[in-house]
């Protein structure tokens, strides 16, 4: 337990999450802000406090705090006074969630939890105006290493979210038997009718027996994501399924900012170390520019090939194994966030057909 609290690692992936959540927070607060701009405060219509004894926040103060929250979220995304602005963003989003029971939504709670976790971490040390300003003043860059216990806290909490949701459906016979999902699809069938889906496709999607399979599969995916993210062996599969799961929720239900926040939150499962894989490319290769631009999590250290007789595109993995050709391309594409969703299934199928064959295992990365 002590080692968990003492462990340090890179906060770079969390800095990417910080930028995503800045944008997500602005989108989340926008409808409230629209009301506030029209002079409508939360207490001008039906609202209900969580506890009857707590003092009531005046509507005018609530409106001002929304502006503070939006400004703070923008600054947080840019990495300006990052620790302070992340904390203020968290407080405003949490305050708006807790001001009335009518503001409660699971997705808003999820966003609040993520902001709380980020507020505990120095994510402004990298990918931030704070870091850039520090360099500009000639001061040495702060290391992107930090104590990781808030990251483990976030991982635990996010994992519990998937498990709580999956287990609640698993123990509900209506959910497990498919009634809930099937009835939803039938109820919102009118959304399908204007789409290019053929009639037989709509009939298939509203076919009751289909949900005897779909509902247990959806529950299994949710539980697998909640558990599979913890193991290095299953993490890539769980991440990919998580993305597919959230995209399918986005197209089938109204979940406000949940999909974007949840897909962004998958960044917390990135191994908290940077540049610990080496990508060797021919000198001047345009691939280096592309990889540098897409390597948001800092997975690769790009080096020129040591000699003319080398394979042309090689990756030295964390364990020291040297990969080339298709396998090297696979490793790169599955470690870049934008290419991961497309590359992961292709690489997985390729790996099943031909097990990994490292060129050599002589080079060990530091």
């Amino acid at each position, binding site marked *: 337990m002590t080692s968990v609290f003492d462990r340090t690692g890179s906060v770079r992936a969390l800095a990417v999450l910080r930028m995503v959540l800045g944008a997500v927070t602005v989108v989340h607060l926008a409808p409230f802000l629209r009301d506030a701009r029209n002079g*409508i405060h939360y207490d*001008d*219509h*039906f*609202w*209900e406090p*969580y506890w009857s004894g707590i003092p009531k926040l005046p509507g005018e103060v609530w409106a001002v705090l929304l502006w503070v929250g939006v400004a703070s979220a923008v600054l947080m995304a840019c990495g300006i006074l990052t620790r302070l602005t992340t904390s203020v963003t968290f407080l405003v989003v949490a305050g708006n969630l807790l001001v009335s*029971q*009518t503001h*409660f939504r*699971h*997705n808003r*709670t*999820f966003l609040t939890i993520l902001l709380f976790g980020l507020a505990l971490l120095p994510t402004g040390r990298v990918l931030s105006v704070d870091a850039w300003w520090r360099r500009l003043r000639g001061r040495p860059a702060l290391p992107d290493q930090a104590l990781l216990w808030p990251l483990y*806290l976030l991982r*635990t*909490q996010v994992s*519990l*979210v998937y498990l*709580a*949701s999956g*287990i*609640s*459906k698993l123990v*509900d016979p*209506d*959910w497990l038997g498919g*009634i*809930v*999902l099937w*009835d*939803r699809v039938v*109820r919102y069938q009118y959304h399908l009718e204007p789409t290019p889906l053929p009639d037989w496709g709509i009939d298939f999607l509203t076919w009751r027996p289909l949900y005897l399979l779909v509902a247990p599969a959806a529950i299994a995916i949710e539980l697998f994501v909640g558990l599979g993210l913890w193991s290095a062996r299953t993490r890539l599969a769980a991440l990919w399924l998580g993305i597919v799961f959230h995209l399918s929720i986005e197209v089938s*239900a*109204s*979940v406000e900012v949940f999909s974007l926040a949840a897909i962004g939150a998958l960044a917390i499962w990135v191994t908290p170390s940077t540049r610990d894989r080496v990508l060797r490319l021919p000198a001047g290769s345009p691939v280096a520019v592309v990889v540098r631009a897409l390597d948001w999590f800092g997975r690769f250290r790009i080096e020129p090939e040591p000699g003319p007789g080398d394979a042309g595109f090689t990756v030295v993995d964390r364990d020291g194994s040297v990969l080339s050709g298709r396998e090297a391309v696979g490793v790169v594409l599955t470690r870049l966030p934008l290419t991961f969703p497309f590359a992961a299934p292709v690489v997985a199928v390729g790996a099943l057909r031909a097990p990994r064959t490292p060129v050599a295992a002589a080079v060990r990365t530091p």
Partner: protein
Amino acid sequence: MAVVVVQVGFALNGYREPHKFFAFQPFNESSTWSAEIVRVTWDDERIPVEERWGDGAYSWDTLVDMAALRHPERLRHAYMGVGATVDFLDDALDWVATHTPADHQTRYLEADVTYYENTRGPQHTTLRSVERERERGPA
């Protein structure tokens, strides 16, 4: 460890409490509901809330301003779950009864709720707001 205990506590509480606050149990139902909501006046008239009242100052949809409770006269998907919807409706009746000072007619509001829980039903329940104080002087 405290975080785990608190989150598990909320998750377990979600099996008991209709709103499932912080329990992360989304999309838990595909229930539907509708309600006939009336204002019962001091003269025992029953006036549907679809009609504006208080000299046109009040409408149900504007007063509640909550997507889940708007247009209660139509059969609607209870996207928060039918338990949470009925509980909010109960609180909303009280809120409307106590936040409409220009209304000099209404004694209380009443909602006759019909709901189907995951296609099973119909089931009925009747909710009533707190009773408003009768104003003295000319109505």
